[in-house]
């Protein structure tokens, strides 16, 4: 187990370095370097001397491999530079906005698990009944519906319902407060985004739970368990579900990382100041320093989640550990 964890950890490093290289190259493909964009924004006359001084200071004349090495080292020491738009350090900008996004991501994951695993299991147990059909339609609708439109629709619904019942349209507040200081206000902010993102997430998970469960239920050891007279509840919980959930664990992990991508659009809908919104603003403002930091953040989250999932998987399934 120890060996396995170390190997996986070492394999994650080239992925991160490769991603950094890709981001580094992409950002250098943008016409005009950081200095030109910073000095020349707003169509003002570009002071050549100032641009040159800035280039010298940032070392833009150094050979590219050296620049890349410095880029890597800065990231390794958690120095992500300063935002070109606000002038604040990128760490501060991200730190301010991370809590909202993380809370929505965690809540969406919980919603997805609580919905998907019971529904997927029931759907598999009652295969081809009306219950199964309803669950499957729910799942496929969840995959086809863009979460941002679901978000818009839920906002419209809340506005309409409050307008016609109380006469005054109510919208969830947009200024984030932490759960610990004002739980009710906090929940009224994050509940809708978490549900809309969580629904899509649960749809994917539901489909996998159902198909994994169907596969396991046809295994010989389930027949054996039935033959020796075990009660159905134990067969399902202890024998079937335990095995069927193995691939589901992986999917939940992978989807968690991709959730951050989905938040980019959902936060826009709900006007939430999370990292997704920050990402869009960074791209719109051509704040390349911020953009590359955010891309790297998302990739790092993905790599780390994958690592955790793999280790968890090995811990759950001895076959992986010893192969």
């Amino acid at each position: 187990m120890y060996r396995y964890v170390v190997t996986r950890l070492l394999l994650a490093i080239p992925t991160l370095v490769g991603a950094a290289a890709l981001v580094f190259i992409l950002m250098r493909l943008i016409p005009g370097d950081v200095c030109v964009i910073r000095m020349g924004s707003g169509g003002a006359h570009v002071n050549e001397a100032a641009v040159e001084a800035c280039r010298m200071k940032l070392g833009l004349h150094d050979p590219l491999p050296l620049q890349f090495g410095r880029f890597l080292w800065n990231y390794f020491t958690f120095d992500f530079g300063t935002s070109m738009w606000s002038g604040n350090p990128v760490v501060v900008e991200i730190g301010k906005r991370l809590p909202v996004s993380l809370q929505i991501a965690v809540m969406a994951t919980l919603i997805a698990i609580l919905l998907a695993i019971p529904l997927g299991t029931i759907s598999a147990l009652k295969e081809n009944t009306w219950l199964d059909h309803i669950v499957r339609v729910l799942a496929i609708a969840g995959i086809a519906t863009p979460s941002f439109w679901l978000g818009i629709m839920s906002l419209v619904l809340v506005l309409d319902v409050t307008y016609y019942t109380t006469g005054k349209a109510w919208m969830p507040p947009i200024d984030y407060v932490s759960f610990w200081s004002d739980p009710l206000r906090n929940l009224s902010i994050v509940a809708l985004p978490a549900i809309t993102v969580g629904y899509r997430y649960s749809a994917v998970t539901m489909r996998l739970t159902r198909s994994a469960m169907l596969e396991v239920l046809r295994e010989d050891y389930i027949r054996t368990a039935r033959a020796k007279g075990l009660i159905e509840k134990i067969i399902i919980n202890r024998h079937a579900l335990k095995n069927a959930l193995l691939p589901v664990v992986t999917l939940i992990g992978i989807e968690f990382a991709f959730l951050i991508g989905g938040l980019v659009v959902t936060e826009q809908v709900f006007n939430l100041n999370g990292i997704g919104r920050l990402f869009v603003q960074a791209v719109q403002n051509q704040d390349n320093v911020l953009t590359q930091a955010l891309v790297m953040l998302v990739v790092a989250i993905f790599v780390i989640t994958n690592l955790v999932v793999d280790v968890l998987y090995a811990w759950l399934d001895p076959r992986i550990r010893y192969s």
Partner: protein
Amino acid sequence: MTVTTPDRATLAPPKDETADLHRSPWRKVRDFIRRQPLGTVGLVIVIIMFLAGALSPWIAPFDPEENDFTAMMQAPGVLHWLGTDQLGRDIFSRLVYGARTAMLVGFSAAIVGGLIGLVLGVASAYFGGWFDLVFQRVLDVLMAFPLIILALAVVAVFGTGVFNVIVAITIPLIPRCARVVRASALAVREIPYVDAARALGFSHARIVLRHMVPNVVAPFLILLSAFVGQAILAEASLSYLGLGVQEPVPAWGLMLQGGAEEYATTAPWIAVFPGLAIVMAVLGISLFGDALRDAIDPKLRDR
């Protein structure tokens, strides 16, 4: 100990396994419709969307850009079937023209990305060795970017607009395709005819393109249908964020921009219909893709 007598089924002549190959295309279509009613519905939706996109100028009753300031935010009715938006534009006409953008971006990104991924994936499996090893690591890196994040990063570099959006969505689809295709191609590579072709002195390019690619087409087609759906969703998301297709090109994602909250009580149809169009398009292609998978490879059913 009793000897069980074989029942009628086992006595019946064995079913001709190759029967499928000899049927006429028309029968295959009829069989598909009978066995996959949901998939047929999906296919019909996709065809309708496709026709709407191809024939937009003849279908749309109004110019999608025409502002009729005497008829702003009108409810769906006889003249404006799905109502008008806050600028007095006919929503149905805009949806029809939006289908053109959605289909163009969805299909071109999926097909181009899919084909590049197909060739790369098969080549990687065929050559093996260090090429495969390096290629695998490159795929690992590319797969670490969520689709929309990589697409946004590409837009940050190349800018917005229809063509750039297609490029931005194509790039993240390539590794996703290559990975799946490589897995199938690895199995094909073990089949002796590949070695036979090599022994006959065929070139690498010929073996990859003529002998291996056709044998991984089944999983590829299933993948492709999923990609079209993902690409349509990605285009809608990018356009909604203002970082995709730009006005005046009509796009469903653009139609959802603004308007939703402000007009929730007065004109909810502005936000409802474009979203429904996206759902219909993606649902249609997913249903068809699911049915295609069942029809091509029953082993993969319900995966």
